[in-house]
């Protein structure tokens, strides 16, 4: 079987598995998994930039929050219905990606990390500053009555799960396909050796810029979906913590693998969920995981699987 056929089957299998799970899981885990799939979509967006293009952003929460607030404000003050509001969310994140891309891509390495961190911090503070509309730290709730699409109630656990699955599958299949075609392979080339890629005649800046745009837009879609499906929009989602999470999920699951983001999000979500049962210091787990991953397992779970058993793993 060719590698591309194998990877297609793998992705189909993952999606089918998630579909079956929604009928077998308890309500509690079903709710968790819906949340995880949206967060994994965020991680997939992050992975496009970090895992495949080799650009480490410390500010992706700004894209997630842009999507979330784009949708939330459009629904709350614009009176929009969910579908156009969702489009507004993605568009907001896309516009922000364009601005951040043009500016931040002038820098590399450590400076890129700090610049993205600073931009995200500004977005977080701007959300707080306009607290009259954004409700700042408190955030605001999108009422159940507004969260209806085509006669379906997105607050119903099953429909919410399926909507999250639809979002996740789209992001997974789109990015997986993208990494097989010329564009994605050039992104990997940029990650592996930027100068070499330029000297082969590829426009490195254009590729990096598009990677930021795609990564930011997918992250924004995840943020918009999170607001829509769970009915809450708050400044926490723009904080540094939410920029660190996707890095953590992708590192843990395996940077530059298609299903690593999901694997990392599942593990980390349950680890934090479990530990918050007996301590409020649940971010301790995240801190320890970051240090241990950087020290001992940079390839992450799926990266390790690829190295040992399945070199074809996409």
């Amino acid at each position, binding site marked *: 079987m060719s590698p591309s056929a194998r990877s297609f089957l793998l992705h189909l299998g993952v999606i089918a598995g998630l579909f079956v799970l929604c009928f077998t899981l308890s309500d509690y885990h079903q709710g968790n998994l819906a949340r995880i799939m949206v967060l994994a979509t965020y991680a997939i967006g992050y992975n496009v930039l970090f895992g495949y293009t080799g650009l480490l952003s410390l500010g992706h929460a700004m894209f997630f929050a842009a999507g979330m607030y784009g949708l939330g404000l459009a629904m709350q003050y614009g009176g929009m219905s969910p579908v156009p509001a969702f489009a507004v969310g993605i568009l907001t994140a896309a516009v922000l990606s364009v601005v951040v891309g043009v500016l931040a891509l002038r820098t590399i390495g450590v400076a890129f990390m700090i610049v993205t961190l600073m931009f995200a911090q500004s977005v977080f503070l701007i959300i707080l500053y306009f607290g009259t509309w954004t409700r700042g730290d408190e955030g605001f709730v999108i009422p159940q009555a507004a969260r209806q699409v085509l006669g379906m109630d997105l607050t119903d656990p099953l429909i919410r799960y399926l909507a999250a699955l639809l979002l996740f599958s789209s992001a997974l299949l789109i990015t997986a396909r993208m990494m097989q075609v010329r564009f994605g392979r050039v992104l990997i*080339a940029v990650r*592996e*050796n930027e*100068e070499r*890629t*330029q*000297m*082969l005649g590829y426009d*490195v800046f254009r590729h990096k810029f598009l990677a930021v745009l795609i990564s930011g837009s997918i992250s924004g879609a995840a943020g918009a979906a999170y607001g829509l499906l769970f009915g809450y929009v708050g400044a926490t989602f723009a904080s540094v913590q939410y920029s660190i999470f996707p890095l953590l999920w992708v590192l843990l699951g395996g940077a530059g693998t298609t299903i690593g983001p999901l694997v990392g999000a599942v593990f980390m979500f349950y680890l934090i969920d479990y530990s918050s049962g007996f301590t409020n210091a649940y971010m301790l787990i995240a801190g320890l995981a970051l240090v241990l991953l950087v020290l001992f397992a940079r390839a992450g779970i799926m990266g390790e699987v690829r190295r040992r058993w399945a070199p074809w793993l996409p």
Partner: protein
Amino acid sequence: MMLLETKLLTKIYGGLTAVEAVDFSLRQGLVHALIGPNGAGKSTFVGMVSGRTPATSGEVWFDGQNISAWPAHKRMRLGMAYTFQITAIYARLSLFENIALAQGMRDQDAALDALGRVGLDERLDQLAGDLSYGHQRLLEFAMGVAQSPRLLILDEPTQGLSESEIAGFNTLIRSLAGETTILLIEHNMDVVMSLADEVTVLQQGRVLSSGTPETVSADPLVQDAYLGRETC
């Protein structure tokens, strides 16, 4: 027809002139060797030709177009290829992916042909970083060929290779002669004498002498400054 011309090409690094007002021209189809002692400005010069290094002043013309302001990737697309002095392959990608990227991922057969030319077409799935040094240089060369350039710039392709590997390289470069114009930086004088149609000697950023290998090696200035010491 002149494929490549430079006019008064100059590079100054923080007050230090690395290349000074070099006028250079290269006719289509020739192999031109650039020689000179370390620090003469050879790599800086080809860097400015390829666009890797921005020029301080002067012009670069390629195929009748002034490309002085073009970024490197556009120059490559116009028909240049550049192989690095320090091997710059994608170590963590397979040989196939390396050559496919070089070819532009449009024509798989052309990519495989280029690998076949250097005899590496049996190892498509191997990681480029696992190759021996000599094979990595060959891959680097094949990547240049796979771009099917009109001008191939080779920056010290035989550096660090054994005698037999150098002989192999000579054959490869000769097999391209005629179809591809080649600008070659080379230290090994045997290689230069056997391959080059024309030679330019750089010293301290300036052209010391230029012409056929015979005239250049007979030039007393050159003998004084470079050849006498280098060949012994």
